């Protein structure tokens, strides 16, 4: 049995005899996965903080309160089912974002203005 120190709490066995893969046959007993977004304080955007499982939307908000705001980390919470999120694909990163790469004229620094023009 090989071992390594990892995770926060020290050494654990590693190696081929320690399986990591989910079983394909596992019946999913878990509640659906929700992603959680918290507004830290008024004036800030909601920011993604993690995820949790909950039976429905309302319970998800309550669980998010307990899990992610135990120390006044937020004034507002959004939860959304992970399955309802559509995201860009990392495989298409270049074609997805390249069109904005060559449009330097969208940035203020593209334009040369004499130094003596005030307030610009």
């Amino acid at each position: 049995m090989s071992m390594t120190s990892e995770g926060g709490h020290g050494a654990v066995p590693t190696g081929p005899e320690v399986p990591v893969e989910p079983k394909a046959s596992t019946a999913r007993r878990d509640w659906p996965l929700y992603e959680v977004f918290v507004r830290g304080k008024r004036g800030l955007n909601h920011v993604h903080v993690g995820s949790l499982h909950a039976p429905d939307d309302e319970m998800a908000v309550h669980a998010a309160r307990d899990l992610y705001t135990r120390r006044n980390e937020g004034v507002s919470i959004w939860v959304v089912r992970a399955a309802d999120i559509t995201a860009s694909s990392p495989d298409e990163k270049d074609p997805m974002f390249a069109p904005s790469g060559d449009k330097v004229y969208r940035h203020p620094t593209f334009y040369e203005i004499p130094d003596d023009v005030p307030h610009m």
Partner: protein
Amino acid sequence: MSAPTLDRPAAPDEAALQAQFDATIAADHRIEPRDWMPEAYRKGLVRQIAQHAHSEIIGMQPEGDWLLAAPSLRRKAILLAKVQDEAGHGMYLYSAAETLGADRADLTDKLIERKQKYSSIFNYPTLTYADVGVIGWLVDGAAICNQVPLCRSSYGPYARAMIRVCKEESFHQRQGYELLMTMMRGTDAQRAMVQDAVDRWWWPSLMMFGPPDDDSPNSAQSMKWGVKRHGNDELRQRYVDMTVPQAAVLGVTLPDPELALDPETGRYRFGPIDWTEFKQVLAGNGPCNDERIARRRAARDDNAWVTEAATAYAEKHA
């Protein structure tokens, strides 16, 4: 006018993906969930994060045993908050493991079936209330040494979870040390109780950093990938160097006659660790292994009806 169609490139081959991954690691950038990653990197992370999560969840038990026996309402409230934090830490970590395709319920099953492990430290019993303080000071102190570098782990969700955990661990360590300082100001019997707890927990806390680097085969690869940032021996040494002065302030003796400051390095030398004990505990033969797993199993099975009832309610009101 219609928008121009984007030319989709042919799917990049494995070598190109590997090169992109290596470049991200080399630049010390973070790997994010939907990035391509080597299968060994993904599997290693799932194993590490799951075992870390299991440690947090099992770690609720030794201290939870003192919730009803804490000596005052203040101490009860503090301990309750700490145990609740440990549950939270487990949840952050399971959440990170799920971004790699793991299934949370399945990970719990693997823990209960003893197919995945948790830290050896939680298989020792908490015999007196002083153990609560010593766990906060020594065990959480060692955890902090291990966890702070993980905030810079190459896998984004793991690093972010660790940042949250580390913020909260500081409370854990300080409440433990304050508890011990209070007892040390008390009676001779209380001071003896603290010393006894230190005697029992010191060596297991050193074992938390794992075997020496030359006996830790996964460490090198893990460090190459930026999952781990320091070797076991370096982290253990840092922990000893930090803890010895804290013990002096507290007025307890660390149970190691060989513990001494090396004037040349400015670091503390310490005696040999009993790795046979460590391996025995990890193999399932520690004082509390069976009890910990049985309790986790009971929590899953006895509370299954709550999960099912909430699901039934949600379906009815969907």
